[in-house]
Each structure stands twice: as structure tokens, then as C-alpha cells.
């Protein structure tokens, strides 16, 4: 229980939401990528998995522990099949396997990450002003 526990928790939230935004941006950028670097078909949508930080017993005694990234996982939903015989990656039937990225879902994820970032900033500012108000008692 330190002075800046709320700070650290909010800070970890900021980093986590920024990573979510990074991954969403990558998904949006690759919404039309029919090839991936390792040659394994189209791009697969990625998603950030977050978990509550602090698994040890000592950590559990602290009130504010923040969040950490458990990992970045690939979305297992099947890719879209689009009929486009002129595409260089089209199969024998003329279908192209497109990434399983839905632009609308990515946009809502982006808004969610942005709002969550704002919420963390507000929590940090509130912790800061509470600290400043405490110091005002001495003035």
C-alpha cells in the first residue's frame, strides 16, 4: 500500500489500452491482407487478452495491482470467402480467402479502447487531485 498504488494501477491500464489500440490498428491495416508473412493463408485477426496483475500472495495484500497483458491471441473464426476470380490469390473456383477482420467490429474496439484509456486517465487525475487535496490540509 504505497502512495502511488492508484497511479501504478492506472498506468498499467493506460499501457494495456494502448496495446489494445495497437492491435486493433494492426487488424484494420490488414483487413485486406490475403497473405501472411509465414505463407499460412490470409491474415488472422488478433485480440489482446488482459488479466488482473499480481498472482503472488504478497501482491494480493496490496489493494491496487493493475492489469497486465496475458497474451495476444488469434481469432479462430473462419476466414471470409469472397468470389473474385481476377484476384491473384483466388482458388480454382474463383474464391479468395479474406481475413476474418470485420471493420465495424474493429472500429467499436477502437472506440472502446479509447474510452477505456480516458477512464484510466480520469482515475489517475482523480488520484492526483486527492493527493493534492490531502496536502492542502497542511497549508
Amino acid at each position, binding site marked *: 500500500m504505497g*502512495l*502511488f498504488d492508484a*497511479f*501504478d494501477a492506472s*498506468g498499467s491500464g*493506460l*499501457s494495456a489500452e*494502448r496495446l489494445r489500440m495497437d492491435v486493433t490498428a494492426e487488424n484494420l491495416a490488414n483487413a485486406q491482407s490475403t497473405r501472411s508473412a509465414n505463407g499460412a493463408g490470409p491474415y488472422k485477426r488478433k485480440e489482446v487478452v488482459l488479466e488482473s496483475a499480481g498472482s503472488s500472495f504478497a501482491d494480493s495484500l496490496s489493494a491496487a495491482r493493475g492489469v497486465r497483458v496475458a497474451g495476444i491471441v488469434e481469432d479462430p473464426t473462419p476466414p471470409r470467402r469472397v468470389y473474385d476470380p481476377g484476384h491473384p490469390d483466388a482458388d480454382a473456383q474463383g474464391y479468395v480467402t479474406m481475413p476474418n477482420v470485420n471493420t465495424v467490429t474493429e472500429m467499436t474496439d477502437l472506440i472502446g479502447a479509447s474510452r477505456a484509456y480516458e477512464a484510466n486517465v480520469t482515475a*489517475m487525475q482523480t488520484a*492526483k487531485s486527492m*493527493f*493534492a487535496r490531502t*496536502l492542502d490540509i*497542511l*497549508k
Partner: protein
Amino acid sequence: MTLPIDPSIASSASEWAIPSLDGATSEGAGAGAAQGAGSGFGSMLSDQLGKLEATQNEAADAAKALATGQATDPEAVVMAVERARLSMQLASTLRNKAVEAINDVFHTQV
């Protein structure tokens, strides 16, 4: 460093002793005075000032890393700077309060 406030000058007031900090739980304020300035409030003060300096250095390093483009995590920089600012605010408020108290003593009518 010099110690501006030494609670050991309060010879008879046992409430001035900070047992949990100087470790002298069973000893009174008189024993605290015998121990001198190496323990108790003085060492706590210098500890805290050392931590304050470490926080300031950390913030300066983080700001430098951000300015030179080495920082990958802007939130960490912001937090280091903000933590340093608040620590400094706390220290300066406490210092002002201590100076105010010592001035009150100096202005005592005799």
C-alpha cells in the same frame, strides 16, 4: 547532512518518540536522546530525502529517454514525472510546515 529537527531535544515528552521508526520500542524518549541523530526521525528524514532524489533522477532519465526517442512507453514517462512532482510537492509542503513551526518558536514572546 545537517538535521534541522531533532526530536531528541524534547527530553520529557514521550509522545515525541516514534517507536515504530527508530526501533526503540521499549525505550522512552530519554533513551532516544542518548542514541543521537543516527536513528529515529533524523534517519527517516534522510531516507525520505534520498528516495525523493531517486524519484527526481528517475523522472529526469525518463524525460531524457523520451526526448532522445529511446522511450517506448510514454505512459511510464508521464507516470515517473508525475510521481516525482507529487513527491516533491509532499516534501516541500512538509518542509514549509516545519519552517513555519520553527518560526513560531522563534517568535515566542519572552
